[in-house]
């Protein structure tokens, strides 16, 4: 239980001073040492020190002064205890649940892409971003939701900013979700293109999940742990067997697909998975991916601590000037939208106002779960950055640059990348591919393969063995693909319900989620929406990730800005104006970043519009630009780029609208001399007898 603020003991003061000095020292080494490569442990130690200090001081400040969390106040879990959704739960259990819900593929992908600018910019943004932005958002939204019966972000926006603002924000969430699903599915496509081994193991997850579903339903109902162990053993067996499949001329060819074919397969899969009953495919896959996710995060942490790799990537590369091959654009604003999850993730505001506020038994525990949970995610992001930066930079750029820039052979790639100043030989690239059991490592952007190679090298350093690198590589690919596909299944289902709700406003019967017509139509619409962007990514001249990731980043940071705006409005409404900067400054920062990035994507040399015009001009001149093979394909690229530009404009408009609503609400609340926020009334914890 939280007690009143006490003066720290002398021993405590010394301890915190020591942590601060060690942290500052490590950060100094990371930031200032030039010329010689440094060990990753410096970076990890600096991160831990920053997180610990941020947690101890800043989160406590927010809890005591901004949110004024009160351990004597009854929480929704206590007041509305129903044993199912609202249950007072042990804080460590809530923490574990919350972390599992917020951690996904995002923090693993963004930092890997951002490593093209060197490890320092990404590290600093993750550390500062999380302490002053991301964790503040998660904690404050959780705090607000606890005071409002565990209401969702959409409901809170409606209550505090008005009904129109609520609708606008929810529309933004739906569009964001479609982009998230498309980009994540594209990461899988990029990882599996012409990789029979990877494709086979990922395909195996479907029969394994079906088997688990039947087992859980009919043979041993509800025995999750048991069935997950069975599933895990089968998965590992499928990785092992995959090597033989890939080696066989007939079977290898059967699982060898190009990006387009994989995109279509995923679209078809997404449709089936979200139409089938949840117990058959979605739920068992979800269990497996949840446990594998936690297990792999722990494995990655162990690998980094035991292997203590040297960071081979320079601290800062020349690509901070915006000429990088992985994503285009200057450090500002593009670094800040490329690393979204891990530093600030808007999506978390939905989780923090979902199940978590209904489980906390005391307001005093919200700090650990909300702020602490996000720090954990930032730590995952730091580890992903370490894994990417500990790779040979030549290998990193070979894996993450589009073929338009580095060609399609190891020879061309090595020449191009060496010219950028990262000397690498064709043999090094071919050897890496051979070690991980793949035909080629070129142009596999999207984070997953790079992280997989990084992890494979780290794990191989600890547990050597003939052919083990290939096993670890495919393990890492499988685990990312598994939880991305779970997100795709579950997201399609959520999207379907949202679409059915909107459709229900026009034609009432479409609203019924049990009706097969409504179900099939809404699922098709939902799959069509993300499938369009996925397919666009698969045929994109720059490899897809280069084009779509900024769109995802802008959308995710837009949602974070909206959540922080809500927190700012409520702070003013509670008449705590002197603390308005706590959520206000990160909100303004994100608005500036998203609007600037949006603007660059709308006009200028790296914009969607410029890309569209380039292809349109080529069509007019009767020329053919790679990778398009016909005029019709060129026309499609033009259309796709205009669609992306329109979407960017919509996001910008949306954020400006929300900013208008927020400023209006702040101005009103500032003039009124009493609190106007809509909190539930205070009920003392002691007065609630029913527990």
């Amino acid at each position: 239980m939280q007690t009143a603020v006490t003066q720290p003991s002398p021993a405590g003061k010394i301890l915190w001073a020591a942590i601060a000095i060690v942290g500052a020292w490590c950060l100094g080494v990371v930031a200032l040492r030039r010329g010689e490569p440094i060990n990753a442990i410096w970076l990890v130690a600096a991160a831990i020190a920053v997180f610990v200090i941020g947690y101890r001081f800043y989160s406590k400040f927010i809890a005591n002064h901004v949110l004024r969390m009160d351990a004597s106040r009854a929480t929704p879990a206590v007041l509305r205890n129903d044993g199912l959704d609202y249950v007072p739960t042990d804080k460590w259990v809530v923490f574990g649940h919350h972390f599992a819900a917020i951690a996904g593929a995002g923090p693993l992908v963004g930092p890997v892409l951002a490593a093209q600018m060197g490890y320092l910019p990404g590290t600093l943004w993750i550390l500062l971003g999380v302490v002053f932005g991301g964790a503040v958002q998660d904690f404050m939204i959780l705090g607000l939701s606890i005071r409002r019966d565990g209401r969702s972000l959409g409901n809170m926006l409606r209550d505090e900013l008005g009904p129109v603002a609520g609708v606008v924000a929810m529309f933004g969430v739906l569009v964001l979700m479609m982009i998230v699903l498309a980009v994540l599915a594209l990461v899988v496509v990029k990882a599996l293109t012409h990789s029979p081994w990877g494709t086979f193991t990922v395909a195996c997850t479907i029969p394994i999940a079906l088997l688990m579903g039947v087992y859980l339903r009919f043979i041993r109902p509800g025995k999750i742990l048991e069935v997950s162990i069975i599933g895990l053993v089968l998965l590992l067996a499928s990785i092992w067997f995959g090597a033989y499949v890939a080696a066989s001329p007939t079977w290898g060819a059967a699982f060898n697909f190009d990006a387009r074919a994989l995109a279509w397969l995923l679209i078809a899969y997404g449709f089936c998975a979200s139409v089938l009953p949840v117990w058959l495919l979605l739920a068992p896959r979800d269990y497996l991916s949840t446990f594998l996710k936690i297990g792999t995060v722990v494995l990655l942490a162990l690998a980094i601590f035991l292997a203590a790799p040297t960071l081979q990537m320079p601290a800062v590369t020349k690509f901070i000037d915006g000429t990088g091959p992985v994503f285009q654009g200057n450090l500002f604003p593009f670094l800040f939208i490329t690393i979204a999850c891990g530093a600030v993730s808007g999506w978390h505001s939905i989780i923090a106002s979902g199940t978590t506020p209904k489980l906390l038994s005391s307001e005093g525990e919200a700090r650990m779960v909300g702020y602490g949970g996000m720090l954990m995610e930032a730590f995952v992001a730091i580890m992903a950055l370490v894994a990417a930066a500990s790779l040979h930079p030549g290998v990193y750029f070979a894996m993450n640059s589009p073929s338009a820039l580095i060609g399609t052979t190891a020879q061309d790639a090595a020449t191009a990348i060496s010219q950028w100043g990262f000397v690498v030989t064709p043999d090094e690239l071919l050897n890496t591919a051979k070690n991980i059991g793949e035909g080629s490592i070129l142009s596999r952007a999207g984070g997953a393969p790079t992280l997989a190679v990084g992890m494979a090298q780290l794990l191989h350093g600890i547990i050597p063995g003939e052919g083990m690198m290939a096993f670890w590589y495919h393990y890492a690919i499988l685990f990312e693909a598994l939880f991305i596909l779970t997100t795709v299944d579950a997201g399609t289902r959520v999207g379907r319900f949202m679409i059915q709700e909107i459709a229900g406003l026009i034609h009432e019967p479409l609203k019924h989620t049990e009706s097969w017509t409504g179900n099939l139509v809404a699922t098709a619409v939902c799959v069509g929406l993300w499938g369009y962007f996925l397919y666009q990514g698969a045929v994109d001249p720059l490899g897809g990730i280069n084009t779509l990731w900024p769109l995802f980043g802008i959308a995710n940071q837009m949602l974070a800005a909206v959540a922080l705006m809500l927190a700012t409005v409520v702070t003013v409404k509670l008449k705590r104006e002197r603390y308005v900067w706590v959520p206000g400054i990160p909100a303004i920062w994100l608005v500036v970043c998203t609007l600037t990035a949006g603007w660059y994507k709308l006009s200028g040399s790296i914009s969607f519009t410029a890309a569209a015009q380039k292809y349109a001009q080529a069509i007019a001149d009767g020329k053919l630009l790679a990778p398009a093979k016909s005029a019709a394909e060129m026309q499609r690229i033009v259309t796709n780029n205009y669609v992306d530009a329109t979407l960017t404009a919509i996001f910008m408009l949306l954020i400006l609208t929300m900013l208008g609503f927020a400023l209006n609400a702040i101005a009103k609340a500032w003039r009124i001399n009493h609190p106007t926020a809509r909190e539930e009334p205070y009920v003392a914890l002691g007065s609630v007898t029913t527990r």
Partner: protein
Amino acid sequence: MMKPNLQSIWKRAVQTARLCCGVPDYDVYIKHLREHHPERDVPTYAEFFRERQVARYKGTGGRCC
């Protein structure tokens, strides 16, 4: 709070793992039913599990990227 021992740590780990999959603690639910709604039937764990499994994917939650 009692002193943590291996058994209670294991119990909590299982509780966390199940909650991550959207299945709250069955014993807590049964206790709640007995205390507050004695007139209602107590579901078996299998029934409880199925109900929660469907409820998890109703579209309210969502998960992160």
